């Protein structure tokens, strides 16, 4: 009966389907649906930029308008929206975008590097309709704050501007103020550290419609007029729901936020070196908080307060203030996380750095929070056992995967044997991403994961005694995943070569910064291994310490040896 619908009707129906997964499913129904769908797909997400070539993407989706890419790039010829994560981007590329795409709207460079404020100046100057410029956590060569002045006076289209990663002490503040003032649709503004506390009030008064704000430096000598000016400016932002920034905090200025705290749903204090009492005071004013990022200065006591004040909490991230210290510098233990799991029934996403853990705590957490979708635990010292029983933490993590049926992302740490992987393989049916370090006893561990986790897309492993057997026995599984990363494991060079030869749809890349892998016997383990599926064949833009295992390329390398 699908035949009786004209294409336009189907296309209209498809236009309501935004999720990539659903779109992909639609395209598999039949040939005509495939055709209709591909002509009307506007947004494409490519999880690994080497998995498919730009030409293929354009050929299939000629009307695409928005691209989200992860991985290392060829620079792709797309217009209007580009979102890149963990890529090297040069000024030349930015200048090319600026020159070629005058209607460019969205540029998100998440955790990228390789460019400077010169490239940003080009973007600012040329992209007249720029809506979003987001440089979150990128490493930018901040040559001068002057690039902000390159936004023409006619630019009023900005909706989102995130320059929090820019490191220099200079910022062209007047240019920034004017820019903010003339963009009435600005919803999200994240400043960098160079912007001092006394300047915040001026900025906020020009943009009272902000929903998300990142302060710069939040430190100054306490002066009553500065304080009241700041407090007044914050209170005039009736839509403000999300705060971040807070480098160098002077706690005496935190009460300036109290007027907006009741509305706050997201608070990122993960750079704020404030102690637990001040954190407790602040958090207790935020009953609607859904998302909290904080340093371990919050301590167990702060987390207990969080658990009693913030019943809507969905996401918690606790970062270490002193990750390399030998002794704990704060009183943050598994107790804090247990308290939150008890008090916050909506908890879904956890990232927690701590120094000790027990199976009992993990079991409690699992039972309290069956809705967890992301659980990342980093016990700082590798191979730390249950501090109460000195046993491995297999049972604890086993409880997590067993009780949290929707768990999509899991990071393990602590002392772990092959048993934990058996639990994961048995229960982790929805698991999409797994990170493993210093764990397991043998290939059996890896085998459990590869054979049991049906939804697995990304697997990253370091310093585990996993070798050739499990990998080769589950080679076909690798084609169903986006990628596998293994470093400091026991996979031999010979096995890598074998995989590369036998699995044409996989790119098998061996990375060794000390010497070429073929200068040692084939049974020698490789340093790092990155395997990903690709229909684009091997890439050729690798640095010299990366080797592709491929039948043809092997010969090529062989001639240089």
């Amino acid at each position, binding site marked *: 009966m699908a035949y009786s619908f004209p294409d336009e009707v189907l296309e209209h129906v498809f236009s309501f389907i935004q999720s990539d997964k659903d779109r992909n499913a639609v395209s598999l129904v039949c040939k005509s649906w495939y055709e209709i769908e591909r002509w009307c797909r506007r947004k494409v997400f490519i999880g690994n930029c080497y998995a498919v070539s730009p030409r293929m993407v354009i050929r299939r989706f000629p009307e695409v308008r928005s691209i989200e890419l992860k991985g290392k790039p060829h620079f792709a010829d797309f217009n209007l929206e580009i979102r890149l994560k963990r890529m090297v981007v040069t000024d030349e590329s930015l200048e090319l975008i600026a020159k070629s795409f005058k209607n460019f709207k969205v540029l998100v460079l998440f955790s990228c590097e390789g460019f400077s404020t010169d490239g940003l100046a080009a973007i600012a100057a040329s992209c007249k309709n720029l809506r979003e410029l987001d440089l979150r956590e990128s490493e930018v060569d901040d040559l001068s704050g002057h690039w902000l002045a390159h936004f023409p006076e006619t630019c009023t289209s900005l909706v989102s501007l995130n320059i929090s990663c820019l490191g220099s002490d200079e910022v062209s503040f007047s240019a920034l103020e004017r820019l903010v003032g003339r963009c009435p649709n600005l919803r999200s503004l994240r400043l960098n550290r160079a912007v001092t506390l006394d300047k915040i009030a001026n900025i906020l008064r020009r943009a009272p419609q902000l929903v998300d704000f990142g302060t710069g430096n939040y430190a100054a000598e306490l002066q009553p007029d500065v304080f009241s000016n700041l407090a007044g400016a914050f209170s005039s932002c009736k839509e403000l729901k999300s705060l971040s920034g807070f480098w160098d905090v002077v706690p005496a200025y935190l009460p300036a936020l109290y007027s907006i705290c009741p509305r706050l749903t997201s608070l990122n204090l993960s750079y704020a070196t404030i102690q637990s009492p001040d954190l407790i005071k602040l958090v207790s004013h935020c009953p609607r908080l859904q998302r909290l990022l904080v340093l371990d200065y919050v301590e167990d006591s702060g987390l207990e307060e969080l658990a009693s004040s913030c019943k809507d909490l969905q996401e918690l991230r606790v970062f270490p203030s002193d990750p390399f210290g030998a002794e704990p510098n704060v009183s943050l233990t598994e107790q804090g996380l247990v308290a939150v799991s008890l008090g916050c029934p909506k908890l879904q996403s956890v990232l927690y750095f701590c120094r000790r853990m027990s199976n009992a705590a993990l079991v409690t957490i699992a039972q309290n929070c069956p809705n967890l979708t992301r659980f990342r635990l980093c016990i700082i010292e590798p191979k730390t056992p249950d501090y109460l029983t000195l046993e491995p933490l297999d049972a604890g993590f086993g409880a997590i995967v067993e009780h949290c049926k929707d768990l999509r992302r899991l990071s393990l740490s602590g002392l772990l044997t092959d048993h934990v992987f058996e639990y994961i393989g048995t229960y982790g049916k929805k698991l999409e991403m797994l990170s493993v370090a210093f764990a397991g006893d043998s290939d059996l561990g890896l085998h459990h994961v590869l054979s049991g986790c049906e939804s697995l897309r990304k697997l990253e492993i370091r310093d585990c005694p996993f070798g050739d057997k499990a990998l080769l026995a589950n080679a076909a599984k690798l084609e169903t995943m986006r990628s596998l990363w293994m470093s400091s494991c026991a996979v031999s060079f010979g096995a890598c070569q074998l995989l590369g030869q036998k699995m044409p749809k996989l790119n098998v890349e061996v990375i060794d910064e*000390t010497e070429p892998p073929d200068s040692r016997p084939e049974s020698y*383990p490789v340093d790092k291994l990155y395997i990903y599926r690709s229909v684009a064949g091997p890439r050729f*833009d690798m640095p010299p310490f990366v080797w592709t295992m491929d039948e043809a390329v092997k010969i090529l390398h062989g001639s240089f040896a």
Partner: protein
Amino acid sequence: VLSKGEVVSEACSYPAESELELGLGLSIGGATGKTKPATATSSWGECGRILTAKDFPSVVSHRTKNGGPSVSVSGIKRAAESVSHEGGSPTGVSGSSQVVGWPPIRAYRMNSLVNQAKSQRADEGDSGIGEKDKPKDALKKKLNYNGNKISSTTTVNEKGHLGFVKVNMDGIPIGRKVDLNAHSCYQSLAQALEDMFLRSTNSVGVEKEQLTKASKLLDGSSEFVLTYEDKEGDWMLVGDVPWRMFVSSVRRLRIMRTSEANGLGIHKKSMANHSCFSFSVSESCYSFVAAPRFHDSNERQRSKPI
């Protein structure tokens, strides 16, 4: 299905083994004819993850019962004497700080931690808390090179991986990173950089001619010089100042063609003190007068996308 209680070793059988289409024969056995014998020091464990293994052995190699080498993890507490950087007190350093990339914290966050720690230390001894919005110059004056300030900044550098700086070499598109904490003098740094940039025998992405030219460094000719950008954004010749001072002020490194190194900032009297260098300095290329800020238009040849 394997039972939980089974002792697992490399030799145990998997249910899948009989269906293994791929076969493992290729990977077991001797090297093919084209490989050269591994050098004595290149045993898997010691190469490890840190490029200059000499000062910083972080991985101990063990042989498994099957005879193949395998990596044992470095959660081991290290011998105190193996830490060689300045001002360090190696006792009590835990295993986790010896492992590269662990705990898993993004570089961006690590840099923030460093910057915060540094600015906090810079403000130590000042009157008034929270005077963090001083003008740039005043802050710089505090970080002048007297003994106290140096040791406070190197204390920061002590901490694990906060001592990584970027290194680029002219003509090589891909930059690298080197851990300054792993060195205690210019000589070992220079050696490490030579290993990093010149020893790689696979020439994909690098001009072969380039490598040949560069390798003359080992002979002491002056094709390239090692330079660094300091906190003030000036490019200086490495070897210029005492090591500690260098470590506390270096932002990044560049192995520069000697021909482009004209006008580098350099202190006249320290020219005589570069004997610990492997990279040699061609005197004719430098003016001894304090030079204006090196214009880094050459920096435009950045890393290409990788």
